[in-house]
């Protein structure tokens, strides 16, 4: 069992706090915070084109983050890793830029369990262009995601499948490997939203033998600073796309009449990037790999399973998770208490969870709910956190006299 609270200053500084909101954003270990703070104290300068050593040393770290990220994903072309500000920007980049290639009558498939970040951009694109947005549904009862529910929607007109690897509400893992294989075979582009998957699982796309056209995730959910996101894209696909943001650093040359754009990755990284945050991502991946992502998955799954078991023992508590879980996401409701009231009572006990729609309103509505209370376990949580959660959930019922 992992015992890592000691690596996370927020958890040391606030020893009373039971932090179960890593699904929204993870805490940062000393290893990341100290390095980035030191970077700003000793090395900082803007990257690109600076001849002097501070600038060069910053550039080296920045480039190393790109290499590390490619390695983390198990992909070969380092230049196909694009740094954005978050998953949301990564997806919008694809929606704007790849979206230009789509036309009226084309079809895009998304799933009902998408985060708004992987739903609204496609919905808006579909509206603007007369594209048909098709929704793949999960099984309402098992909360699992049979691959046919997606593949059966594929037609000759399907141009893109935008699919979350893992639901941020249910922890349901989508059948992304099979869907990707089908998409690859049929020449349909596929975008995988890994925001909730990458922080919790070892992945290696090359080993898996699949070639997603786009993979997106955020640094802040895997112990890096907020402000950095990743878009990985297949080389020929990215090369074939128009730039998204234009301006400095993504240009070969500019005349009054026209501009020639730089090759990958610069083409998609306009302006001064979030240097510190990108470097924090390098350190965060190093940190997670030093622990081992297999161990992280195992640890948090173990905690979530225990929490689910204990929650289910409480009368009136309903857990929304598939039978087979492999991460730390635990959404639940209590009969007669609104999730916001649950989160408030838990907050009184210093148990930090999130309540609401979790930016997944289509899913919540589909499940016939208004809102969920969600606890998420990560590598720094422990059995004591499970105890605190259970105790506090029981107190909710006492307070509400249920």
């Amino acid at each position, binding site marked *: 069992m992992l015992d890592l609270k000691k690596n996370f200053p927020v958890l040391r500084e606030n020893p009373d706090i039971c932090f179960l909101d890593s699904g929204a954003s993870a805490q940062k270990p000393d290893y990341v915070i100290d390095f980035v703070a030191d970077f700003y104290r000793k090395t900082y300068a803007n990257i690109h084109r600076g001849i002097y050593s501070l600038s060069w040393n910053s550039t080296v770290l920045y480039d190393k983050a790109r290499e590390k990220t490619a390695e983390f994903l198990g992909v070969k072309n380092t230049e196909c890793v694009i740094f954005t500000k978050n998953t949301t920007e990564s997806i919008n980049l694809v929606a704007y830029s790849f979206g230009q290639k789509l036309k009226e009558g084309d079809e895009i498939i998304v799933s009902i369990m998408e985060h708004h970040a992987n739903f609204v951009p496609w919905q808006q694109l579909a509206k603007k262009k007369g594209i048909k947005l098709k929704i793949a549904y999960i099984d309402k009862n098992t909360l699992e995601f049979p691959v046919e529910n997606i593949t059966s929607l594929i037609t000759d007109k399907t141009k893109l499948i935008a699919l979350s690897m893992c639901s941020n509400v249910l922890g349901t893992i989508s059948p992304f490997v099979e869907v990707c294989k089908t998409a690859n075979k049929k020449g349909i582009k596929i975008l995988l939203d890994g925001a909730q998957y990458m922080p919790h699982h070892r992945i290696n796309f090359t080993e898996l033998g699949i070639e997603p056209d786009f993979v997106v995730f955020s640094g802040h959910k895997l112990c890096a600073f907020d402000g950095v996101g990743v878009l990985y894209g297949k080389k020929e696909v990215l090369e074939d796309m128009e730039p998204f943001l234009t301006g400095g650093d993504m240009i070969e040359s500019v005349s009054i009449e026209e501009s020639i754009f730089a090759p990958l990755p610069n083409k998609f990284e306009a302006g001064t990037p979030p240097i510190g945050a990108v470097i924090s991502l390098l350190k965060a991946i190093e940190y997670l790999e030093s622990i081992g992502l297999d161990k992280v998955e195992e640890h948090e799954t173990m905690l979530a399973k225990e929490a689910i078991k204990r929650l289910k023992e409480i009368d009136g508590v309903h857990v929304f998770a598939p039978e087979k879980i492999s991460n730390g996401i635990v959404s639940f409701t209590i009969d007669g*208490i*609104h*999730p*916001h*009231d649950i989160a*408030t*009572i838990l*907050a*009184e006990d210093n148990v930090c969870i999130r*309540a*609401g*729609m979790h930016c997944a309103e289509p899913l919540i509505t589909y499940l016939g709910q*208004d*809102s969920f209370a969600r606890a998420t376990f990560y590598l720094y949580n422990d059995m004591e956190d499970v105890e605190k959660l259970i105790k506090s959930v029981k107190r909710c019922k*006492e*307070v*509400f*006299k249920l």
Partner: protein
Amino acid sequence: MNFDPIYQEVILDHYKNPRNCKEIDGVSEKGHNASCGDKVEVVAKIENDKVEDLSVCTKGCAICTASGSIMSEKVKGMSLEEIEKFIEKVKKYLKGELPEEEFDEIFELKALSGIRKFPVRIKCALLPWITLENTLKKDKK
């Protein structure tokens, strides 16, 4: 006994048995708190510059529901001018801009003030009051 500073007896009572959600004719307005999904519908029957009758229906958390229910009891019968002032005062109170003693006489409102410690929840308590405010504005037009 229930010692929770927020979910006191009176709040839970108003949550479980919200008052004055009924069908009446009048100016109506809806309110919605996007971040938590709370919904309120207010209908005010206004005659002679007075709120003669009021319906407040909420769908949401205990705080919002109780706040709406308490409101429906307190403002009925007030003149429009009185209500406006009262809403202003309650808003300030809930936001923590007035001392806790301010509503010593209206213990239901005082009970609500426990949420001041959780600023995100203040919106829930405010929603019915803001919706009522909007209802009255609509009437003026």
